[in-house]
């Protein structure tokens, strides 16, 4: 990361440019497993953002003291602390939600998104930049989870935030709240995201391919007689 990037950029990039789910393909386990409804996606996204923001802040503050050889272990200790806080708070304040998310809240500790941000960003940058980066990535993750949860809840059980929005005549597609539906939704959304962003890049590639491909497949010989 170059130092001359603005603080705003560190936040904005997490939303789309390096969106954890659609671009970095990190944190797939919670993204696929818990997004059966908007509420679950929202809770998971918030919990992950909380852990990400505070561990980024702490790790970037103490980054000068962590020996390089044991940095992963040090990161895990810090992350696990905040995961424990998130898990206990959830159990105390939102017992139903905690039950619905099951083991996935404690499993935030091994979410590669969080460890990835520490390793790639906050262990090399000052606390303020790390905070913006963590907030951006957390928000990107939250948005992805809520969108996935919304699509799956809407088609799979005809409701949004437990409020029926589709007409009763619509027969819910059970597949959307099964694991297969998670993979379908994720794959299609990811395809869509890449389709629009890389349009310019792809056009350049196509031109290049077209330029070099033509002579190799057909060879035209022009002359009076063959």
């Amino acid at each position, binding site marked *: 990361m170059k130092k001359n990037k603005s603080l705003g950029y560190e936040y904005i990039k997490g939303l789309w440019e390096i969106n954890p789910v659609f671009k970095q393909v990190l944190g797939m386990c919670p993204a696929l497993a818990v997004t059966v409804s908007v509420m679950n996606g929202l809770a998971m996204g918030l919990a992950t953002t909380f852990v990400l923001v505070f561990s980024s802040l702490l790790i970037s503050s103490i980054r000068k003291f962590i020996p390089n050889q044991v940095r992963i272990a040090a990161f895990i200790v810090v992350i696990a602390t905040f995961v424990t806080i998130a898990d206990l708070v959830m159990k105390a304040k939102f017992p139903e939600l905690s039950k619905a998310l099951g083991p996935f809240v404690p499993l935030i500790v091994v979410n590669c998104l969080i460890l990835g941000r520490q390793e790639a960003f906050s262990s090399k940058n000052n606390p303020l930049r790390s905070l913006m980066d963590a907030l951006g990535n957390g928000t990107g993750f939250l948005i992805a989870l809520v969108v996935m949860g919304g699509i799956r809840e809407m088609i799979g059980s005809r409701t949004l935030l437990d409020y029926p929005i589709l007409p009763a005549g619509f*027969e819910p*597609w*059970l*597949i*959307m709240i*099964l694991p*297969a539906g998670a993979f*379908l939704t994720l794959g299609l959304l990811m*395809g869509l995201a890449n389709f629009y962003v890389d349009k310019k890049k792809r056009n350049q590639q196509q031109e290049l391919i077209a330029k070099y491909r033509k002579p*190799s*497949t*057909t*060879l*035209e*010989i*022009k*002359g*009076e*007689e*063959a």
Partner: protein
Amino acid sequence: METKSVNPSYKLELTSSPHVHSRWSTKQAMWFVVIALIPALVSAVVFFGPYQLLIVLTSVVFCVGTEFLIKKIRKRKTTVGDGSAVITGLLLGLILPPNFSLSSTAIGAVFSIAIGKEVFGGLGYNIFNPALVGRAFLQAAFPVAITTWTNPNFSVDTVTSATPLAAYKFDKIFTSIQPMFLGNIGGSLGETSALAILIGGIFLIAVGVVNYRVPLAMIVGILIFAGVFWMIDPVKYPNPAFQLLAGGFLFGTFFMATDWVTSPLTSKGMWIFGLGIAFLVVVIRIFGGLPEGVMYAILIMNSVVPIINRYTYPRIFGEAK
């Protein structure tokens, strides 16, 4: 090669082997498959009534429409004319249960073409048989509707409705062979009548559109594997003839597993493919939770076709071993 009188220009095509040409173009072959499906379609109408034509029609219309639309959106040359979408539609329609809802049929048809075929790049690039992908999707999306079987018109008993396989699986009742051969049993539209499927299948093999190896391997395979179980315990396990005629096995044999795109290219590979499907069908039917396993068996074997192709690659003449 055509030569023009003015400024002749010759095109020299450089392609890799094989250089042998098939008798039929893709387009002609596809229409032969459509002809071969007519007996099955007729049997569906005879046994389940004219409403079934609407299901098949919906499926075909939505398959062709989806293909047309996707090609338009992606700004590619339209490939509707080659008839592959028509076949996918026909096949999907014929493996749905009788009196299935038309809106669900349409969803399945759109899914077949969009996810089963176009996502991979269109005809020739798909890993899985598109019609079976659509069927598997519907099975997961509407599990109740797709296992609701209506009895055929000529059935003596009009109250119960179960396919012979479900009857065997849950109630240990064996259906006799003769109605199963003619098709006077509960089941999906086009797959009840073994007779109609055999007419279409043998026609396809006779005109050379379909290679005989995959169907033969599947039939031999199911007779062997079912026979082994039958010999172990004839009371508990159904006999090989029942296994052969029940459910969608024959339909899958002649129309699904023989799909050019999703079956192996080599002769040895075709035998492995056919025997593998037969083995999986017997295993799923006897030990699985579902009464029928032809769909999943073919889809599973479709996914290993690239591996089969790689390991049965024929030795080039003169190449050292």
